[in-house]
């Protein structure tokens, strides 16, 4: 294991995060806080609770998850896309590093950043909406796994993309719709039966429900199902990355 290389990549990526702290940390926290204010405090008071949880509190896990998903994907994809774009990738390709070390460095940094964001957003939410966490370890588990999985997925996008447009296309066309339809703002049981079925194909639904269960103990599925789904996605992402590195796909001519 080239631990120095992992540290070098990690340190480099974290420095980039802190250099752009406004854009990478302040902005997402602020945006999510606006949701808390509008939906939690302002509108939430006029909407009835769901499954015994006040609407303001009900949407917090989903909102945090939503924000973490998009931040993780964008961090994960930018980290590896930038050196490809600027040409500095030559150094990574000529370095004595194994794929796994590159992945740990980049995905680790992207996931760390998302975790910091997640914790900050949860802390901020407490100012606007009272909520409790019934299963803190599960909560943390979901937080960490989501950060890692989404960052890994972002990393794949970053390798695949060969233009800034391609870098944005999957987050905008696929991930955002899936997260908005992922049950952040509602319980699946509130949907018409046919949509309840269709929704089951959306992996985000399982994430949001599992995460919400760790807060309030309410979920549309068993928590084990949620956990299995996220682990499966993570495994798929790793398998894909493995293929990418073994074949040199889009990285080596």
């Amino acid at each position: 294991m080239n631990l120095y290389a992992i540290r070098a990549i990690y340190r480099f990526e974290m420095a980039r995060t802190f250099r752009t702290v406004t854009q990478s940390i302040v902005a997402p926290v602020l945006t999510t806080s606006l949701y808390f204010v509008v939906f939690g405090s302002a509108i939430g008071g006029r909407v009835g609770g769901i499954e015994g949880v006040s609407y303001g509190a009900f949407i917090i896990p989903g909102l945090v998850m939503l924000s973490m998903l998009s931040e993780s994907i964008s961090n994960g994809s930018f980290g590896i896309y930038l050196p490809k774009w600027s040409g500095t990738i030559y150094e990574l390709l000529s370095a004595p590093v194994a794929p796994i070390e590159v992945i740990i460095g980049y995905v680790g940094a992207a996931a760390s950043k998302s975790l910091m964001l997640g914790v900050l957003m949860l802390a901020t939410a407490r100012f606007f909406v009272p909520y409790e966490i019934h299963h803190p370890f599960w909560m943390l588990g979901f937080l960490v796994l989501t950060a890692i999985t989404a960052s890994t997925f972002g990393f794949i996008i970053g390798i695949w993309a060969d233009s800034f447009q391609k870098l944005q296309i999957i987050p905008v066309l696929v991930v955002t719709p899936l997260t908005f339809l992922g049950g952040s703002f509602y319980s699946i049981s509130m949907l018409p039966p046919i949509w309840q079925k269709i929704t089951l194909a959306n992996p985000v639904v399982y994430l949001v429900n599992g995460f919400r269960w760790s807060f309030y103990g309410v979920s549309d599925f068993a928590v084990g199902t949620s956990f299995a789904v996220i682990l499966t996605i993570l495994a798929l992402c790793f398998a894909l990355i493995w293929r990418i590195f073994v074949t040199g796909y889009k990285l080596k001519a």
Partner: protein
Amino acid sequence: MPGSGVIIAVESLSKTYASGVRSLESVSLEIRRGEILALLGPNGAGKTTLINIVCGIVKPTSGSVRVDGHDVVRDYRAARKLIGLVPQELSTDAFESVWSTVRFSRGLFGKPDDSAHLERVLRDLSLWEKKDAKIMTLSGGMKRRVLIAKALAHEPRILFLDEPTAGVDVNLRRDMWAMVRKLRESGVTIILTTHYIEEAQEMADRIGIINKAKLLFLEDKTQLMRKLGKKELAMQLQKPLAAVPEALANRKLTLGDGGNSLIYTYDSNVADTGIAGLLDEVERAGIVFTDLRSRESSLEDIFIDLVKERS
């Protein structure tokens, strides 16, 4: 091979890019430990492709490369640790500081932090004052030096310089040459590509010429010059000539300088250069010359001849 005289062994290396471009055709060569090898060749010859395969940036289509005994594909970790690469393109980070980018390089190549070494490298390259500057604020020549500093950050035993002096002014070029010599003295093997023939002539121990994906040859510099060395004798004429006189037709003579000089080309390696006889014949033909100059053909002439001849 470790410890032996050969540090890099390239064996029938070929590369065909996905686009179908054949950039290397069965290239074989051995690079000696501690030498400076210059690779010359016109644009698109395949120099960068060769370097990139050795460094792991491009996958070979067939053939193999061993670096100090380590196969660059199978045993890439051991091979790459020994190598530092300064790429042809000026690809640098923009917002990072000089210091953090060289520190990054050192870590990436598996070495623990060593501020003293990094300071030495930056000072040698006159970059120490700029260590906290963002790279994007540096001039092109400075960025080139930052790339060199990055390549040297992990104390490589082999240094690839892909056109290190392209777009670099005369002073900096002298500095770089001095740096390369110093590195060689410390035992580093250096492979450089260049379009400046004087650079190869001045720096290299051996010179390889690549053209159209093939290694035309690889020779000791002095031997190469001797082997292919032609000399020229130019006679400055009192009166210009319209053509080479009949009486001298059997000599290999050409007119130069608009008929104002008569040029004799000969092989400097043979015993009888034929100069004495030629001068007699010239006098008998009634040609008066005011000055005589002889000139050795430079590597540049050799290079142009070769590339023309084989293409």
